Every structure is written in structure tokens, then in C-alpha cells.
């Protein structure tokens, strides 16, 4: 019951361990990342320069195509000035859209995880829900705006609902898949180690599915942003979608681009946060990301 086996643990067979690569320094990882991102940064900067040149030399009409500089200029100008004048400054529009996205996303994610979990747990529920997801996949959210207004009035509800109904199917499908994909052996192992069925479901099955669920959430987050304009299409008095629509009325192309720019930046930032979350709960995926 004690004593050490004569057969020593040999790390030799794993070249990664032998060369001490198992835990590369933070600095090393950063510079690795930098090198990989290098071309990306170059390409974005390059694209900006080309865009500026095209706008200045070829198009030469800010209504058709504003320069990147004009876009950033509009962004800075309206950041703390309202557009239109009874509207709100851009920072507030950004804030209000962010809130709508986050609330709609949170509600949709919770519902999606619950439905997806039920689908994974109970085979008949899956068969019942699957065809609805198939059916609703191609449906255009804009079609439902008049209905959402009639059903939910003009306040925040219809806007949040529109975002929520975009999020639900994606999170549902990915949750169901994630939970189903957890290898049966992982669960069997837990049962053999004395875990109850409930403990196995919570501590192993759901836990193991989390990274893939977060991948679904990332997808859903992208979709949320694409529907912010539709959500703020009717009866909004603030929000990035509202500003973009107002700017469209008067072909303030620079302001449209400024709004789109904010959306792109926020979209990427929230995506990065979800990626960070994923890497925190999935030690094995950290280097793979």
C-alpha cells in the first residue's frame, strides 16, 4: 500500500515535455500571437489606406464613400453631441444598444441553454423541437416587426425580443449538440468514481459541454449585432441602429460608417470577451485558440 514503483515516469516519450515546452512563458506566448497577428494588422492598415485613396482620388463624393478620416471625424464629433438634435450623443446610443444586445442576448442564451439541455436529455423533446428549428432557420426577422409591435408595444420589449429570438435557436442547437457530444466514457467514468446521476450531469456533462456552448454563444453574439438596426427600426429614439437609420435619411454616409464602425468594434470586443471566458474554462484549448 506504499512504496514507489520501480518503473519511473518518463517524460522522454513526449517531446513537448522533454524540451520544456509544456508551459511557455507569457512573453513567449504573446510574441507568438503578435507574429501571427502581424499580417492581419498590416492588411487592415493597408485596406484603410486603399479606402482613403479610393475615396479621395476616384470616388470624390462623400455621399458615395466617405474617407476613413471623415468617418472617424464624424464619430468623434458626434461622440458627445446628439444626432439628430433631439436624439442622443453617440456614446449614449452605443450604451443603449449595448444594453439591448446584452439583455436580449442574456435572455436568449438562458432560454437556449435550457431548451438545448432538455433536447439533449430527453430524446422525444429533441424530435419535437428539431423541426421547429429547421422551420424557423430561414425566417426573416424583419417580417415580424409589425407583429412584435402589436404584441409588445413600443417600449424596450419588442427590441429585446427581436434580439432574443435570433439568439435562441443558435444557442439551443449548439447546447444540444455540445451536451450530446460529450463522450459517454467521460460520464461512465464519473459514475464509476461514485458520482450520482445528478452529479455526473452537473459536474461532468454540462461542465464538459461548456466550451462548445460558448462557441455557440459567440455565433449568437455576432447575429445579435446584425439585427440591432432591425430592432431599432421602429419607435426607437436612441441607439446605434436608430442613428444609422437617421443618418441614412439624409445620406450622412460618414455617420452611417461611424455607426457601423462602432458596431464592428463592439462586436469584436464582446467576441474577444467570450473567447477569453472560453479559454479560462478550457485549459486544453488555450494554446489551440
Amino acid at each position, binding site marked *: 500500500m506504499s512504496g514507489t514503483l520501480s518503473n519511473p515516469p518518463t517524460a522522454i516519450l513526449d517531446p513537448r515535455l522533454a524540451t520544456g515546452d509544456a508551459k511557455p512563458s507569457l512573453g513567449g506566448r504573446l510574441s507568438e500571437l503578435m507574429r501571427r497577428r502581424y499580417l492581419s494588422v498590416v492588411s487592415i492598415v493597408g485596406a484603410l489606406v486603399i479606402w482613403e485613396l479610393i475615396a479621395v482620388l476616384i470616388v470624390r463624393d462623400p455621399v458615395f464613400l466617405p474617407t476613413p478620416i471623415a468617418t472617424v471625424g464624424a464619430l468623434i464629433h458626434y461622440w458627445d453631441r446628439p444626432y*439628430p438634435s*433631439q436624439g442622443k450623443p453617440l456614446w449614449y446610443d452605443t450604451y443603449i444598444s449595448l444594453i439591448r444586445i446584452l439583455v436580449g442576448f442574456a435572455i436568449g442564451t438562458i432560454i437556449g441553454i435550457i431548451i438545448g439541455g432538455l433536447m439533449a436529455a430527453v430524446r422525444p423533446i429533441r424530435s419535437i423541437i428539431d423541426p421547429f428549428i429547421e422551420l424557423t432557420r430561414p425566417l426573416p426577422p424583419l417580417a415580424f416587426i*409589425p407583429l412584435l*409591435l402589436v*404584441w409588445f*408595444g*413600443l417600449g424596450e420589449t419588442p427590441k429585446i425580443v427581436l434580439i432574443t429570438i435570433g439568439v435562441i435557436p443558435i444557442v439551443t442547437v449548439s447546447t444540444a449538440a455540445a451536451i450530446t457530444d460529450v463522450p459517454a466514457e467521460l460520464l461512465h467514468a464519473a459514475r464509476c468514481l461514485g458520482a450520482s446521476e445528478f452529479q455526473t450531469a452537473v459536474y461532468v456533462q454540462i461542465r464538459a459541454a461548456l466550451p462548445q456552448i460558448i462557441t455557440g454563444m459567440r455565433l449568437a453574439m455576432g447575429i445579435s449585432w446584425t439585427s440591432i438596426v432591425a430592432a431599432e427600426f421602429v419607435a426607437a*429614439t436612441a441607439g446605434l441602429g436608430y442613428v444609422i437609420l437617421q443618418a441614412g*435619411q439624409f445620406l450622412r454616409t460618414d455617420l452611417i460608417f461611424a455607426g457601423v464602425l462602432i458596431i464592428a468594434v463592439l462586436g469584436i470586443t464582446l467576441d474577444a470577451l467570450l473567447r477569453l471566458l472560453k479559454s479560462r474554462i478550457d485549459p486544453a484549448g488555450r494554446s489551440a485558440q
Partner: protein
Amino acid sequence: SSGTGATSSSGGKQGNLLVSYFSNGYYSGVVATQPSLQAKIPGKVKFLEVQSGPATLAGMKSGSYNLTTQTGNPPVLGAIALNTNLSVIWVEAYDNAALVVQKSIKSPADLVGKSLGYLEGSSEDFSFQSWLKLNHLAGKVTLVNLDRQAMVAAFKTGKIAGGYNDAPFTSSMIASGGRQVVDSTQIAKMGFPALNMVTVDQSFAKANPKLVLGYLCADAGAYQLMTGPNKKQAITKASDFLGQTRALGVPTGLSYPLIAPKDELTSKGLGAPGNVKNGAVVQSLVKTGTFLKSQGIINKVPTVADITAHVDTSFAQKVANGACSK
């Protein structure tokens, strides 16, 4: 039926008035920016901006506001056709729309074969189609269904030869080289008035008559300001509130074809109490109904009696009787 225009289900506690307005609703803009006018309303007012017909109609249907301003014929008629519990209680103005075309077009005859923009289903649509018919142009021009802002873009970039649009979009079109051919006031005189009305949720009006009356008093006061000596100041404030640029918004506001409070109970407005069916409101709504029916948009035109039942002159009568000055 259950859900029709439930009383302020989504807001509006007792004493709260929820008012819808459009970005060219100068009356509401003036009321909203003049504390003296708001003082006439015994309660809190909240203004909700709407941008389109469907939103107004859906908002009325879902009971999102108690009172709508600047509402055109089609949504009002649509709401009546959908059994919504609303009453028309006031008329604010004629539509402020116009046909703007490129300068090269000198007469209506030049329009044959040209592409013209319009917004399908709007009150402009009603006026414009009627005008085309009067000028024997129906079927001889290519109609392009365009959102109001899209129409400006299409006109500026030469994709259409002209379009029938609402103010202040017409101003942008004129500013980029357009010429006004006809406006809705003129078309109204030809027998096809497009009106901007105030409607109210019937059960709300029953429960809160003082609030509703108060709002009409403020609205009548706004008319005095907009036509009085300091109109430019008042309209500038309103234009800012509505989000118009001053360069476009102020002239538009100043030239708005307002209907005077004194005409409310005449054939220019709601009509005389007891003879509402010969008033402009019922007449234009009937014509709108026939138009929408001919467009295949509604299945059945509400009868004159139906429409008359949705016009309520009692508040206008109280205003005329001096209730506002008490």
C-alpha cells in the same frame, strides 16, 4: 374581441399621457418645448416618436399610446377597419407633401414614361395617385416604391425623375435641383384632402377626459404660437426638438399648411356636431377607404356610419366653448 386597443396597457398610469409624434409633427414639437402650453395639461406627458405608418397603426392597436398626433388618413382608416377603439378628436393640418421633379420637366405631360418615386400605402400615395388620375397620367409613368429617405437618395443620384414626398424631404429634393409641381394642399382642394389628425383611445378618453382636453388646449395654443409674431422662435425650438436641421426644418415648419382651431367644427375639419359625415375628416376617410380598397389593401371599406362613429367632436366643442381659458 379581446385585445383591441386596450387602455394604455403598456404604460400610462392614471395621469400620464402617452403621445405619439412624427419627425415633422410641429404641433407636438411646439407643445413639447413650451412649458406654458404643457401647463394646460393636468398630468405628465410623454412624447414617443414614430417613424412610419405601420408603427403608428401597430402602436394604436397595441395600446402603446393614448393619443396620436399628426396621424394621416391611411393609418386612421386602417385602424377603423381593424376595429380599433379610437376616435378622431382634432385635425391639425393638411399633409405637407409635394411632387418634386427635375427642372427639365416643364409640364405634367413631360412626365409620361418617366420614373417617379412614391411611398406605397402612405397618405402621400393617396394624394399622388389621385392627382395622377386627375391628370390622366395613371399607368403612363413608372412608379417606384421608395422609402422617404431612399427617395431623396434616388433623386439626388438621378435614379428617378421625381417623386411625391413629405416635407422636409421635399426641401432636400428641391435643394438638389428639383422643382415643385403640386402639393397636397392643392390636391386637397381638388377633392382629395390628406389630413393630419389627433386620435385618442376611446376608453382612455372616457377615463381621463381632462387630460385629453388639456392636450387639445395645448395644441390650440401651439397654433397661436406658430402663427403669431414669435413664430420663428417657437418653430426653431420645435424643429430642434424634432431633430430637423434648422436650415431645412424651420422653413418647413413656417410653411406648414395648418388648419385653424376655429375651423375644427366646420366642413374643413371634423364637421359640425350632428353633421360630421359631411366634414372633411369623414369625407377624406371614405375616399381613402375607397382608394385602399381599389389598391386591394383592405378587403372592405368601412361604411360612412362606421367612420362617423369614430369621430368625436365633444372635445373640440369644449375647446370652442372656451374650456381652455378656464
